[in-house]
């Protein structure tokens, strides 16, 4: 009889994990609503996945060999802690360790305190008045974020480089800071607003399995946060993601190594800071910046979405890794991945991301047969069933395809998008996986690389040197 695997969560990410797990295990799922993809391949229970008792009760009922907590909010609410308390093996960071994602202020302090490469300058605010005062007096090019993770929402990055547009930008910054406190008021954290220095460059995600001592990295993936074509439009949770065969073409080996080093140090620091081994999944949302080279923008205490879909589809020894967690032998198990490039395209209803209510409850039809005929696969995200399949307002469906190159995978995924239809307007990005976009990434990465290498040669990495008339040289 095969082992029992229980997944907690009901999105496309959990669908991808469950689908991979189903290759080896009998899958059970605890999800907040019926995800048709997960439902199809598991025995499941619809339950409040933020309630540790309810999830743990289901675990007791199933008695799984391992539980995998996919969703960050479950981690934040201590679901892993309760599952572990009841004696189950749980792949998913405990509440204290998941703080690295929940509190962006915690994350920044951790990096700063432990002197980890890529520590951006930041300031935290517990009330909006002080934040507004700071913006009025100092803020230049900055990122303004809710201090608590809010599903990726509420982040605003403003380049403030033109003196003649300064007032407009100051105005927008203030309005946004006020909006954060209004929309994302954190009940469980003192810090409300985080302001950090803005960096630019190319983003990439490094997803890793770890038991706190050993780390199993997965291939690099690049997400596409802009809602619309050609990197225009508001920030989303990600409109799609690409991975090359093993690596991304615009990140070199040294940069990859450095990124992994940063993650190893961060995981160790979590232990020294919280006393907890980081046991679960961690994703580094990196940017190759001109200032530091590889730089952490945010940490996730779980796999990325859509990045999880890219890697789970090609991860060929997921069972060994899971059992490595059980046996404490993770050190000996590197990830074995199929030698394919992958592309994921997310299909969202009009209204996403800025007014999700607009695109909620719309009928959506997915022709799985046609999509599979193309060699592509469907993962269900923000959809639910009520007679028909209905949209939840966020990214509804994710299309996965693989190929010998990102270009080839992109073409297949693009073709497959035509088989997801709705009476409501749906959109996705045609350009994800295109040569034009890859070329652009290569150029942006090279620009950042040229500058950070210059800085490295001149011993300037991580240093800010300024000269102010009347005051003199200031070094930080």
């Amino acid at each position, binding site marked *: 009889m095969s082992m029992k695997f229980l997944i907690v969560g009901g999105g496309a990410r959990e669908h991808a994990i469950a689908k991979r797990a189903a290759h080896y295990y009998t899958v059970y799922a605890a999800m907040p609503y019926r995800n048709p993809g997960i439902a199809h391949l598991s025995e499941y229970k619809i339950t409040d996945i933020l309630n540790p008792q309810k999830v743990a009760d289901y675990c007791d009922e199933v008695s799984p060999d391992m539980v995998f907590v996919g969703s960050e909010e479950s981690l934040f609410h201590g679901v892993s802690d309760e599952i572990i308390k009841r004696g189950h093996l749980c792949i998913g960071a405990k509440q204290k360790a998941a703080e690295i994602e929940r509190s962006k202020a915690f994350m920044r302090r951790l990096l700063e305190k432990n002197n980890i490469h890529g520590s951006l300058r930041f300031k935290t605010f517990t009330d909006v008045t002080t934040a507004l005062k700071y913006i009025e007096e100092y803020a230049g090019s900055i990122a303004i974020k809710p201090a608590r993770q809010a599903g990726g929402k509420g982040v*605003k990055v403003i380049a403030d480089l033109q003196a003649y547009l300064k007032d407009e930008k100051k105005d927008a910054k203030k309005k946004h800071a006020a909006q954060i406190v209004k929309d994302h008021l954190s009940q469980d954290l003192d810090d409300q607003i985080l302001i950090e220095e803005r960096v630019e460059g190319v983003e990439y995600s490094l997803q890793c399995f770890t038991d706190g001592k050993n780390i199993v990295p997965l291939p690099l993936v690049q997400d596409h*946060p802009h809602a619309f074509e050609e*990197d225009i*439009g*508001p920030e989303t949770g990600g409109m799609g993601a690409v991975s090359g065969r093993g690596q991304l073409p615009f990140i070199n080996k040294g940069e990859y190594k450095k990124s992994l080093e940063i993650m190893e140090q961060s995981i160790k620091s979590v232990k020294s800071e919280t006393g907890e081994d980081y046991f679960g999944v961690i994703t580094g949302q990196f940017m190759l910046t001109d200032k530091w080279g590889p730089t952490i923008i945010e940490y996730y205490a779980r796999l990325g979405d859509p990045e999880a879909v890219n890697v789970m589809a090609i991860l060929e020894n997921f069972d060994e890794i899971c059992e490595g967690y059980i046996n404490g032998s993770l050190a000996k198990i590197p990830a074995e991945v199929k030698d394919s490039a992958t592309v994921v395209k997310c299909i969202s209803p*009009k209204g996403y991301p800025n*007014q999700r209510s607009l695109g909620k409850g719309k009928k959506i039809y997915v022709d799985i047969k046609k999509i599979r005929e193309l060699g592509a696969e469907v993962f269900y995200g923000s959809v639910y069933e009520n007679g028909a399949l209905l949209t939840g307002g966020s990214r509804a469906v994710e299309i996965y395809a693989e190929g010998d190159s990102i270009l080839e995978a992109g073409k297949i995924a693009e073709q497959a998008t035509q088989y997801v239809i709705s009476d409501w307007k749906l959109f996705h990005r045609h350009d994800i996986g295109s040569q034009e976009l890859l070329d652009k990434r290569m150029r942006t990465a090279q620009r950042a690389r040229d500058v950070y290498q210059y800085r490295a040669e001149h011993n300037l990495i991580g240093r800010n040197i300024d000269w102010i008339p009347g005051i003199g040289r200031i070094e930080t």
Partner: protein
Amino acid sequence: MAGVLGIYAFEEIWNVSRFLYYGLVAIQTRGEEFSTLSTGNQYIIGEGLPDTLDPSGLKGQAGIAGVFTKEEGFYFDDEISVLYDGSIDVKTLVHQIKNGDKIEDVLSSLEGAYALLVLKDNVMYAARDPRGIKPLCIGGIGFDMAVVSSESSALDVIGAEYSRDIKPGEVVVIDQFYIESVENEPFSQAHCAFEFVYFSRPDSQVFGKSVHSLRKLIGETLHPQDADVVIGVPETAIPFAMAYSGKNNIPVDLGFVRTGRPTRTAIKPTQLERMIGVQLKLNPVRTAVAGKRVVLIDDSVVRGTTMRNTVSLLRRRGAKEVHVRIASPKLVAPCPYGVEVPTRDELIAADNTEEEIARIIGADSFSYLKVDQLKELIGLPVCTGCMTGKYPVSTGSGVYPAEPTGVKTTSERAAEVST
């Protein structure tokens, strides 16, 4: 002749009016007589450069703005704001859009050469004519705004990143919730060749090419001449002179110093204004030219009067010889697509050979860039109507149009639109 700019912010926290204003300053070289700025519910019109506009009272999440060489190319009312560079039947356009017809359908039935921006019900439409005669590109500012502009330099100035050119025949619809592209069937392409020689800023990219790189190629191609110094007429002709100098191993020097603020003399509406402009603009630097054989490079010659004045100034400062090279082909016909080329009897090149022009302006030699040379250097299908009299849009090919659509008077346009 005009320059257009549109900005759409995806969130209400932004007011785009000042972004529009500074972006407009970046393309003010495309039209100095009228400036306009609209945020849909409010609009302002200034007689002159963008600094005649005060955007401080305007608020909006989306807006469009333009600069124009005449009182034409814009239409505003309570429902709709329209701006265009080029020529199009704006009266029919406005009428049909108000009737509820889709913009792409209206455009597919209208002849014209245009970079068009429409703002209606908080939705922005950006369109290019199916031949791609006028330039228009799109980019974005972070996660906050989409920006559409005649020239990419306006994007640079307001901190936007260039994404791509809008395609010939394409209509880009920009809404708070999506950006959609509708593509009408493109015709055979005919990009305005004059954008490369004269209109666009050298720091812009138009029709997918760097303007500056192309101008350097043009400078290298101009007819060689044994001389002691090369000078260019500010500002457009300086890069031509630099490239000519490198190619022919003749030192380039600072030939002129400008008096007063920069202005584009060739697109001034009256002869007196042009002459005042030129005389104020160009004071030759004596030591750069005195006792020397001078190659003088300019971007264009229309009537020849300003060039004659310039050559004479150089001789009075002691130039031994003056050889004039023009970095564009001779103009022989008007432009029906909104560029102000004088009528045939005002064009020096229409009836005179290069030798005759040299004598008229008092130069030792005179030579234009040839149309075929320009075409080859650009390497794209181009419209050379003003240089050949042959137009991509049928207006009687090869025949000098008696009433080109682009040169209707202000009052005629106003009358048409208001009816």
